[in-house]
């Protein structure tokens, strides 16, 4: 059998500044098959974004090895699309320009590229805003522009870090549907970080639940809901069972305290 698309073996990551050391990840083993849709959930600060950076080749592990498509990761791969946790649009380009930047950085240009960028912007609900500058957009609009930017070059591997975090319920649901449809069509490998357990279960083939910092893989759930899941999947008892199971893991970590006057 061919090696999986993404393979992490005993991966650890420690940040060092002076005497201060922060271990973000320790002993992480993950295998993601080519074309799989994997979601990652875990408490804030447990190392999810760090994990994404490791897979993308933006940072190197302190321990263990990261392999993508059979090769050790030594740097970013051009066939990857990343949607970062922060939108990080560049302020000297309008929204269209920001999306095109992804293509231009790969040497892709021309009317076709422009067309695709425009279509994507319309798809994320930013039609008519192509010529606005980032500071003229709302938080959610910036995030949607960043999503368009992450998809415009039709990457074979998609890494998304809470891409729908700043979106309202309706937009979020539509984006979820659109992403599933896209994935069903293109079958790229997707590594999807989210805070919404629902979203993880609705989208992914497999949900990785991470533990507190230093982050490790706590549980892995395979989601065997039929595709396309669409809106109906929410009513499937397996959906409820899975979200419940994952929620329970979360709850088992810390007991929610209704009475404390912490703030």
């Amino acid at each position, binding site marked *: 059998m061919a090696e999986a698309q993404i393979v992490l073996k005993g991966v650890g990551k420690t940040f060092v500044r002076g005497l201060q050391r922060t271990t973000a990840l320790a002993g992480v083993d993950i295998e993601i098959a080519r074309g799989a849709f994997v979601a990652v959930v875990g408490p804030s600060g447990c190392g999810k974004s760090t994990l994404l*950076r490791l897979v*993308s080749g*933006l940072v190197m592990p302190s321990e263990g090895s990261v392999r993508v498509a059979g090769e050790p990761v030594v*740097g*970013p*791969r*051009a066939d*990857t699309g*990343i949607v*970062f946790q*922060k939108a*990080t649009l*560049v*302020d*000297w*380009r309008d929204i269209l320009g920001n999306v095109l*930047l*992804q293509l*231009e*950085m*790969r*040497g892709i240009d021309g009317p076709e590229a422009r067309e695709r960028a425009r279509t994507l912007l319309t798809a994320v609900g930013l039609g008519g805003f192509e010529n606005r*500058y980032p500071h003229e957009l709302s938080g959610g609009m910036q995030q949607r522009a960043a999503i368009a930017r992450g998809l415009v070059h039709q990457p074979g591997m998609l890494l998304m870090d809470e891409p729908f975090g700043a979106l309202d319920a309706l937009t979020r649901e539509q984006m979820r549907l659109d992403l599933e449809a896209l994935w069903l069509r293109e079958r790229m490998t997707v590594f999807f970080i989210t805070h919404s357990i629902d979203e993880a279960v609705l989208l992914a083939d497999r949900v990785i639940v991470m533990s507190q910092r230093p982050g490790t893989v706590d549980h892995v759930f395979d989601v065997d809901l039929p595709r396309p899941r669409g809106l109906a999947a929410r009513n499937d008892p397996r959906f409820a069972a899975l979200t419940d199971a994952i929620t329970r893991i979360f709850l088992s970590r810390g007991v929610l305290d209704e009475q404390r006057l912490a703030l």
Partner: protein
Amino acid sequence: MFEKNGGALSSIATAIALLVVWEGATRLLGIPTYLLPAPSVIASDFARNWPRIADSSWITTLNMVAGFVLSVLVGIPLAMALAYSPQVERSIYPIVVFLQILPKIAIAPLFIVWFGFGTMPKVLLVFLLTFFPIVVNTVVGFKSVDPGVMELARSTGAGALRTFYKIRFPSALPSIFVGLKIAAALASTAAVVAEFVASDSGLGYLIITYNGQLATPMVFATIIVLGVIGLVFYFLIEFVERLVVPWHVSMRADQAGA
């Protein structure tokens, strides 16, 4: 750096006010012309001699612009090398600083000996006197790219060159323009200094000549013409800045004031 409308007017008003005070002071206090000529005296002397000044202005402007362009052409690539490679920075940067610190006016006579009398030593002097602000500001610009944007750039797998002109360069532009403006403001002085030492023409030469003749009003007139040329050049750079980096925070009107 200042508002489109009213800007020119407002500064002209200030300038006129200063002139009136100056004229009044020299008259009331009876300051002799050889110490501080009144604007009216400067104006009338200037009116008599302007063709000479006009010719010289042209020469000085050419030296100034040529030296400035050379500064840009050398300064920005140099800043690139410094910003990109810690090794280059470690070994070259102190030398660049040292070069900047050397009093160019003291070595200017050697320039003439080395390069002869033509345009070359003058342009070189303007270059040496103006390139440093460009380098320092540009280096900082290249180094201050938002780390998030840098990650985005790296994630595309683009080469250094493309990353440079699609990301680092536009991101550094506001900073580069600060350097360009400081250099532009230095350029006219630099051209004149070069002409002090190495020329028989240009406004610098005129200043020396008039100084030797104790023709203080003409010294002032020449300096003022030089100042005007410098101002025009400076605000031209600023105008280009407005065209090129309208998106920068410092350009947004609402940023002024507390």
